[in-house]
């Protein structure tokens, strides 16, 4: 998103920020409508007739005509698209063919599981990736640097579904260190519905709020493996970017000044340089967070994780297009939202990014 240079006569900072935010939100809206245009286009070129899929093969002519009108399929394409956008902006993503439930309600049920998984994965990725990147940058070319680079490239090269299977094989099948597929053991899964109030849909938070620490522990044993594997992928990206930012920062003059003043090297790196590296890292972490939504699609299939990715792939297998496209729109919207949020945060954090 290119920043619009509206006026450079040193406007007050906050006003400038507000104007830029307005421009960003406008861009966001256009992008979102474009996203809807793509899914709309996809949904209209499907070979299967939506009327037929609702009524079945033996519908009469009159029934077909009636449903066509009800669905708005007899109107011009432009009107249809306008209605489509209007509905989507109001949270109406159509009805699932498989379950006959509104897609948005189903997604609301599935989404917390994905959110929980990718949040923990991102936290793991940050906790390992940032220090690894910093250490690699302080000694470029060293064994440590090479290792971080190789481990990172391995993360880029790993098919995530295969990594999931191998993780299950080793840590669940062979070692028995973690819980298997699913979010809880079957016993707890039954109890969850009756004994725990669903505040957020995220099991770790809900069980903690209800004080069911046994269930909490069980949920941890289930989430730790998929979250670590996804965390590895995001670590690969975060460590690489941290290294590159850090290298750049360590070449700056203020670092030399700090060193000449006799400041301990540890303080120079972990306080002075890292503080400035954190700003561009906001964008990186946000990006890796949105990448995880994607990685979650395949991981959730492996770990029987009832999240958005699994929702989309399950719907795909039975050609439930409203559900697939609804899921696509939601993921796309979250993607755009995260990027915009990091953009705004970046502008607030970095005084140079006016």
């Amino acid at each position, binding site marked *: *998103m290119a920043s619009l240079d509206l006026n450079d006569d040193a406007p007050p900072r906050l006003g400038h920020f507000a104007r830029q935010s307005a421009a960003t939100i406008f*861009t966001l809206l*256009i*992008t979102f409508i*474009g*996203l809807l*245009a*793509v*899914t709309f286009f*996809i949904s209209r*070129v*499907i*070979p299967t007739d939506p009327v037929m899929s609702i009524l079945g093969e033996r519908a009469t002519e009159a029934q077909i005509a009636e449903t066509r009108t009800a669905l708005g399929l007899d109107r011009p394409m432009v009107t249809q698209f306008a209605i489509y956008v209007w509905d989507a902006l109001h949270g109406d993503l159509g009805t699932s063919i498989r379950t006959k439930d509104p897609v948005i309600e189903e997604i609301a049920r599935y989404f917390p599981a994905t959110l929980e998984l990718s949040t923990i994965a991102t936290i793991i990725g940050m906790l390992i990736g940032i220090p690894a990147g910093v250490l690699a940058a302080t000694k470029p070319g060293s064994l440590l640097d*090479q290792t971080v*680079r*190789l481990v990172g*490239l*391995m993360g*880029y*090269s*790993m*098919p*995530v*579904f*295969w990594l999931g*299977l*191998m993780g*299950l*094989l080793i840590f669940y*099948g062979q070692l028995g260190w973690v819980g298997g597929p699913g979010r809880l053991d079957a016993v707890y899964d039954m109890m969850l519905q009756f004994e725990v109030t669903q505040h957020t849909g995220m099991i770790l938070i809900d069980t903690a709020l209800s004080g069911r620490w046994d269930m909490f522990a069980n949920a941890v044993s289930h989430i730790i493996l998929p979250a670590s594997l996804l965390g590895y992928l995001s670590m690969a990206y975060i460590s*690489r*970017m941290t*290294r*590159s*930012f850090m*290298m*750049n920062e360590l070449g700056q003059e203020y670092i030399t000044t700090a060193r000449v003043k006799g400041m301990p090297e540890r303080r120079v790196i972990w306080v002075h340089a890292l503080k400035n590296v954190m700003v561009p890292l906001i964008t990186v972490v946000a990006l890796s967070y*949105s*990448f995880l*939504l*994607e990685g979650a*699609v*395949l991981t959730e*299939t492996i770990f029987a994780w009832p999240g958005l990715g699994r929702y*989309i*792939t399950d719907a*795909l*297998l039975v*050609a439930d*297009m409203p559900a*697939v*496209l609804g*899921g*696509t729109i939601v*993921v*796309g919207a979250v*993607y*755009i939202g995260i*990027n915009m949020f990091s953009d705004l945060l970046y502008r607030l954090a970095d005084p140079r990014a006016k």
Partner: protein
Amino acid sequence: MVQRKTENLYEAGTTLIEWLRDPNPASRLQSRMAQTYLSWLRLRRNRLAMVGLAITVALVTMAIFAPWLAPYDPITQTLSERLQPPGTTGHWLGTDDFGRDIWTRILYGSRITLYIVLLVILTAPVAGLIIGTVAGYFGGWVDSVLMRITDIFLAFPKLILALALVAVLGPGMVNAVLAIALTSWPPYARVARAETLTVRNSDYIAAVRLQGAGALRVIWGHVMPMCLPSVIIRVTLDMAGVILTAAGLGFLGLGVQPPSPEWGLMIAAGRKFLFEQWWVATMPGLAIFIVSLGFNLLGDGLRDVLDPRSSGK
């Protein structure tokens, strides 16, 4: 003067290396080859990149010579030899649930992988290059419209858009390639546009235009070649991603269909008996991993050599 002197030197008889190292290249070809040679020398110093190159060469060799290298047929079922563990005589990587030799299937699978990668890199970067150069060269509203479209496609998570596309187009290899290509052109458009913006106002472009060259000719003959190096670097780095996406689609049953020995598909087949016969899912996954790692190592090394601006990502 200088030129004549070097020509005389060749007559005295020189080796290829000396020709490449000549500080006074006599022809355009020679200077270009000398540049390539220098890049090669720098690349050769990077041990990881050489490993990547070796893996890539091995993949191509495997794909070309699969029928001669493979001990069995990749499709024919031999049920009496089903689920043999690795190390069994005649099946060093074991067999799958239909008694097919896994090594044979991996060898033939390399053809499918390479084929998909080639199809994608022949389409997506070209589309991105055209869109990016046109947007960058013309600027104004053309630029705004094209880049907005690019942003929209960038706003989609790649795999999910590919899934939605395949869902509409139907499963199969060509559709999978189409879906991957449709989702991977935007970064190329971005790169090409950025390069175009840097050369657009340079003197040589103005000179060509003053000679009466039309926009098409300027873009095709004088802008696109300048964009090529950065696009090529991106292609090498993207190949691993293409392999992973194709394997993911295959794994979900949306890409290449059975009984083709596609690697993602083989993993999906092995998933059913992961805990008892681990090798069926493990071996093809290792193949995917090694090949992607090869492309990534090579791309990483190439970028360090060809693009001095970026040392990180």
